[in-house]
């Protein structure tokens, strides 16, 4: 065996200058040779810390071993045994804080690029369809309603279907996928990939009903009269605003609106597609999470000359993945750290022309453990912009909680559910993902969907 390479195999990406002008996927994926080289870096250690680092406990060393041995189809089988949406996870999971962070190799050098290998396996499967329809046990006769078709709902539905239950999913929008469709841009997660993964879930016998706003059409209580159990995976879809003067000026967007226009409605293809979006010349994005990076990078691709990220703390505290910060930086996004917006400035016609900001400095750590930003008096300055995007985070949509009797919620509007099982305070109702945790990651939502599916299955079998 060749000497272990402590460096991981880099994944090819579009050149920053080129990709900043198109909506095609940035990361291009491993070739077969790259995959083999990277797969053989895994030392197949006995402790397998990566598995525990994965919220859905994928048998990581096994799928990598199958890859190393040249058996991709077997690798697919192992991966899909635990993860119904691997092509999505391989792209948007924060592996660096999960499986890869735990990797034994990480102590000596670079951890195995598990996410890139996962993506290779998943993309190979999408191209080859090696796996026939998975074996589904005989129908149990139980019916489950899954509300929301994002990562939590899709995972829960897939697992329940594989257990022989009849699952119906309800989606408010006209396309399934939740945040995977409306939030994450094409260049980070191609919509064809999301569609293919949704098709896989449907192939398990899951029915998807679009244009169904639960709480307005039927309520959860009404659904319970014809289903044995309900899973709520409705996410955190309500945008937060700054609450500063001028926020209702034309040209000021929530990140949710800006991204939904660009991603779900394909406004970047306007007028070929009917929904427009303002393509600013100078765009200021407030916030430094992944959503802020997505918005900033979309603005660049729409043709903005200057795109700013404005964040009241410093780079160290920025919640975005390191990789996303780096991508944005490479593409030319300008970072204004330690900068806090005070008000939006508008013209006589009601359009935003700038954002007045204040410089900040970091003080003692606050409740979140991060150093508290403190304003520096007299440092006001204006960032000129014709589009401003507020990416401060999101909270759960209150619609379901407001229309469901006996569903306990927290002061943050999240649904109270058992961390291990997803069981809510209401009989026969489970919940998981952002609606329980507040805005988090795709994979943690999937983990919650998976645990809830297991709990629902136990409940239904016990109740038989």
């Amino acid at each position, binding site marked *: 065996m060749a000497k272990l390479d402590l460096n991981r195999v880099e994944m090819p990406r579009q050149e920053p200058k080129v990709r900043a002008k198109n909506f095609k996927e940035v990361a291009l994926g491993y070739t077969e040779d790259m995959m083999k080289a990277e797969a053989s870096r895994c030392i197949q250690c006995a402790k397998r810390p990566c598995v525990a680092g994965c919220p859905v406990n994928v048998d990581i060393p096994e799928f990598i071993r199958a890859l190393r041995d040249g058996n991709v189809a077997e690798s697919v089988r192992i991966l899909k045994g635990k993860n119904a949406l691997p092509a999505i996870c391989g792209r948007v999971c924060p592996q660096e804080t999960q499986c890869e962070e735990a990797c034994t190799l990480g102590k000596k050098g670079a951890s195995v690029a598990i996410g890139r290998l996962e993506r290779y396996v998943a993309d190979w499967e999408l191209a080859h369809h090696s796996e026939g329809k998975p074996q589904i046990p005989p129908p149990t006769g139980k019916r489950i309603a899954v509300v929301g078709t994002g990562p939590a709902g899709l995972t829960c539905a897939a697992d329940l279907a594989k257990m022989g239950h009849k699952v119906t999913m309800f989606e*408010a*929008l*006209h396309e399934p996928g939740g945040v995977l469709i*409306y939030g994450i841009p094409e260049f980070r997660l191609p919509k064809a990939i999301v569609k293919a993964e949704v098709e896989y879930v449907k192939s398990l016998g899951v029915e998807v009903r*679009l*244009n*169904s*706003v639960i709480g*307005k*059409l*039927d309520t959860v209580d009404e659904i319970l009269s014809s289903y044995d159990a309900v899973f709520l995976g409705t996410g955190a*879809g*309500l*945008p937060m*605003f700054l609450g500063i003067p001028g*926020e*209702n*000026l*034309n*040209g000021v*967007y*929530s990140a*949710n*609106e800006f991204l*939904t*226009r660009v991603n779900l*409605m*394909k406004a970047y293809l*306007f*007028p*070929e*597609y*009917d*929904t*427009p979006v*303002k393509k600013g010349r100078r765009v200021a994005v407030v916030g430094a999470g992944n959503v802020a990076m997505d918005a900033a990078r979309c603005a660049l691709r729409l043709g903005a000359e200057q795109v700013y990220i404005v964040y009241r703390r410093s780079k160290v505290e920025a919640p975005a993945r390191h990789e996303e910060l780096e991508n944005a930086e490479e593409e030319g996004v300008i970072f204004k750290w330690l900068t806090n917006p005070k008000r939006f400035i508008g013209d006589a*016609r*009601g*359009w935003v022309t700038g954002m007045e900001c204040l410089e900040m400095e970091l003080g003692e750590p606050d409740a979140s453990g991060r150093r508290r930003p403190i304003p520096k008096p007299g440092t006001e300055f204006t960032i000129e912009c014709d589009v401003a995007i507020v990416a401060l985070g999101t909270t759960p*949509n*209150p*619609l379901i909680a407001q229309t469901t009797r006996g569903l306990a919620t927290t002061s943050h509007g999240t649904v109270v559910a058992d961390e291990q099982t997803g069981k809510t305070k209401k009989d026969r109702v489970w919940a998981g993902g952002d609606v329980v945790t507040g805005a988090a990651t795709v994979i943690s939502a999937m983990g919650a969907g998976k645990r809830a599916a297991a709990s629902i299955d136990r409940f239904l079998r016990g109740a038989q």
Partner: protein
Amino acid sequence: MYRIVAKETLVPSIQLMKIDAPAVSRKGKAGQFVIVRTHERGERIPLTIADMDPEEGTVTIVFQEVGKSTRELAMFKAGDSIMDFVGPLGIPTHVEKLGTVVCVAGGVGVAPIAPIARAFKQAGNKVITIMGARSKNLLFWEERLKAVSDELIVTTDDGTYGRKGVVTVPLKEVLERPEKIAEVIAIGPVVMMKFCCVTTRPFNVKTIVSLNSLMLDGTGMCGCCRVSAGGQTKFVCVDGPDFDGHTIDWDIFQARQQIYLDEEKQALQEWERCGCVSAAQKGRA
């Protein structure tokens, strides 16, 4: 896909469509709205419900051909199907027995006010309805409103039918009568709703308006439809569409209606240039 059961051109450029949507027709209430998308590349068009027939399983929408999307929708015929139809959205109009209520409708606003007037009538109110249009040939549903109103006043801007002038003139006269007016409901063009509020304010009569702001998802997800009401930011899609008109910052509302004026013009021009018929046929395929 959602089938168009019936279609009727009410007046030039105002179309009625009855859509086969049993679930929505069962749940929908006066004052709520739906979102329509004609085809895969189409935008989401919010339209206030004009009527529902739960037995037939249909929802009636009435819309004015303004831009590309509504003109495209107008090309669909009975028997065709539209891609998406979602609802009922928003909070229903609050209807209870109040005494005498005045319903004011302008232009295409006549359609959404009809079920509201009917609901107020059924709740035991005396209903005075004022409906207005630019000209006689743009008036529709006079009989329908007459049937649910104790009194109906019709105006046309050019005097070709009914009283000459705008709706706020008879509205003021009604408010000046000795009879106590419990509430005014105004639906129509923004300027009309704004001036109805200006008219009612000195009389201190609560005035409900149904705001037709720009929308995207219609479920509270994006904030595109936000308005300033009583100094607070509200979302029309989930907090409305009905608001106390006296609390609305009309300047912000009017400005926000203009956000995509340039793009709307561009879309319409390109559509007219490069064969609108084929585009609509694509939608039907």
